[in-house]
């Protein structure tokens, strides 16, 4: 869209000096262009507003994500704490189990000793006389039974501890799993945060870009207004001559450079800016430094840099036909030179992003932009 406006202005300026069309026609054309530029400007302002709204929405999303990030971080910390507690408890229970096992073994040995002592006392006692044996037997028996109770209690505690230890192990595993999930969630939230942040930055850039474009369009509009104002001035006699005869058949012009069409002529959707733009020419994808040839014989009427389009070259082919070459790398001709059809007049510039080059090409009948693909030879 910017290319269209700028090249249109350039073409307008160039043609305003050189074209032989009538002042009224040019004025009407410029008014249309001004209307287009104003429409584009309005569209760009709407875009700016929309981008700002998007930026605001993204900012709100970012705040929500920040809140979620904080929450997930706290949750993660809690889970880490719980996991550490569970691990500590598991270790304690393991130690307790070992301790209980040792105690059980000790009391088991003591019980075995009591049982042996009791059996020996029973075997060696006087069966016919002496009640003192009975007291001793009762004592050893009670002591053995007490140890049995103790052992059973220890075994019960051991079983409970083993169960608690297993539960603690299961809980630690579960907490570990939950921690992993929370970690993943936190990372996802963090990534989303980064994405949103990048989206905000991108939208911010778009806003800045749209603002710059709006400024440029405003400038173009002002230039066109000036031009229209200038066209209101009295014209020379040559300027009021009739429209020259048009003798250029379709598909008769040479291709300016070898390559493919990257952007066609006319109203096109710009996915980056999410809007419609009007292309006054075509953009070709070429090799870097590819030869740029004259599509028809003519005279160089402009050669030099023009705004952000780098080197620009304009040929007057007569019959009110003009060809415009933009984004050139090197100019091989200068203003006033006569060129032959197919003569190399410049080299394509680099696109900056890849090893390839590009060439902006416009075709005009007077100030009217033509679709080059209609007039260029079929490849």
């Amino acid at each position: 869209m910017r290319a269209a406006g700028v090249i249109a202005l350039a073409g307008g300026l160039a043609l305003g000096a050189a074209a032989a069309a009538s002042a009224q026609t040019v004025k009407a054309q410029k008014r249309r262009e001004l209307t287009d530029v104003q429409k584009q400007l309005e569209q760009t302002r709407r875009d700016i507003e929309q981008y700002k709204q998007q930026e605001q929405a993204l900012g709100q999303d970012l705040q929500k994500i920040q809140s979620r990030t904080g929450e997930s971080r706290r949750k993660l910390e809690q889970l880490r704490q719980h996991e550490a507690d569970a691990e500590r408890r598991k270790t304690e229970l393991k130690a307790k189990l070992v301790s209980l096992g040792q105690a059980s073994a000790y009391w088991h040995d003591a019980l075995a000793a009591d049982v042996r002592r009791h059996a020996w006392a029973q075997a060696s006692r006087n069966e016919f006389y002496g009640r003192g044996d009975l007291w001793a037997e009762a004592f050893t028996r009670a002591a053995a039974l007490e140890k049995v109770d103790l052992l059973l209690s220890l075994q019960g505690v051991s079983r409970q501890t083993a169960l608690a230890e297993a539960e603690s192990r299961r809980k630690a595993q579960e907490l570990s799993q939950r921690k992993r999930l929370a970690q993943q969630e936190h990372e996802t939230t963090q990534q989303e945060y980064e994405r949103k942040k990048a989206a905000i930055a991108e939208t911010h850039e778009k806003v800045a870009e749209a603002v710059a474009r709006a400024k440029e369009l405003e400038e173009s509009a002002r230039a066109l207004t000036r031009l229209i104002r200038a066209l209101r001035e009295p014209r020379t006699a040559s300027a009021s001559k009739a429209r020259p005869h048009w003798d250029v058949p379709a598909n008769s012009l040479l291709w300016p450079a070898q390559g493919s069409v990257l952007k066609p002529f006319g109203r096109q959707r710009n996915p980056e800016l999410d809007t419609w733009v009007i292309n006054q020419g075509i953009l070709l994808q070429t090799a870097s430094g590819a030869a740029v040839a004259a599509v028809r014989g003519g005279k160089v009427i402009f050669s030099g840099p023009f705004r952000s389009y780098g080197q620009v070259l304009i040929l007057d082919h007569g019959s009110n036909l003009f060809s415009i070459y933009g984004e050139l790398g090197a100019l091989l001709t200068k203003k006033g030179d006569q060129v032959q059809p197919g003569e190399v007049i410049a080299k394509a510039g680099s696109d900056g992003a890849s090893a390839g080059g590009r060439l902006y090409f416009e075709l005009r009948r007077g100030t009217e932009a033509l679709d080059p693909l209609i007039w260029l030879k079929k490849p």
Partner: protein
Amino acid sequence: MSPRRSQLVFAALLGLAVGVSGETLLFLQRQARVVEQALEQDFRVLLFLRADADDGKLKVLAEQLRALPDVDDVRPVGRQEQLSDLRRDDPELVESVMLVGDNPLTPAFEVRLAEGGIGRVTEWLTRAQSVADFADARYKPAEVQAILQARFYARFIDLALAAAVCALAALVLAGLWAARRAKSLWTRQSGWPAAASAVAAAVAAALVAALLLPMRGLSAWWDFPGALAQALLVAAAAGAGWALCARPE
């Protein structure tokens, strides 16, 4: 040897045999009594409660046990008393067994059964379980058997001695009856003092030679028949000697 002398020798030998036999029976009877009494004095049934109880409850339970038939005496024994007795009798046992630290014993009752109840100790224990839920009951079944056997031996010897005394009495009565018929009773020619003296001397010699001297070195645990029983034995022997040797003139 004249018939008179041979009668006296026969009476003396017979007296010696009767004396040894009688003294043996008396001695065995006495020992059986002593053993029986000693075992009865020692025999106790120990009843252990399942859990600890205060003194009041112990007294109540003791009274309830005492009210049961065939019970002579009941003595409640607390946990600490049991432990103290054991520690006094066998301190090593107490120290080696009491690893846990607590007194493992529960309160108990020491029951002395009446003489007639010892033989029915199992039935008595069944009745005792109705008083309280005792965790353990201890006694020596072999001791019960020993008591019953000693009692049986004593009774049996009593019976044998009674039968022998009755036989001697019948013999004496027969001698007296024969002498009265011959009207030679209390005559100097009857020779009864000599015969009675001979038998009594033989019995006394048997006591000294067969029993007293060899057994003097034995344990003091043994007991000897009483003096009255000894005198009766000598008198019975004298009477028998007279009855056997006296002949109508």
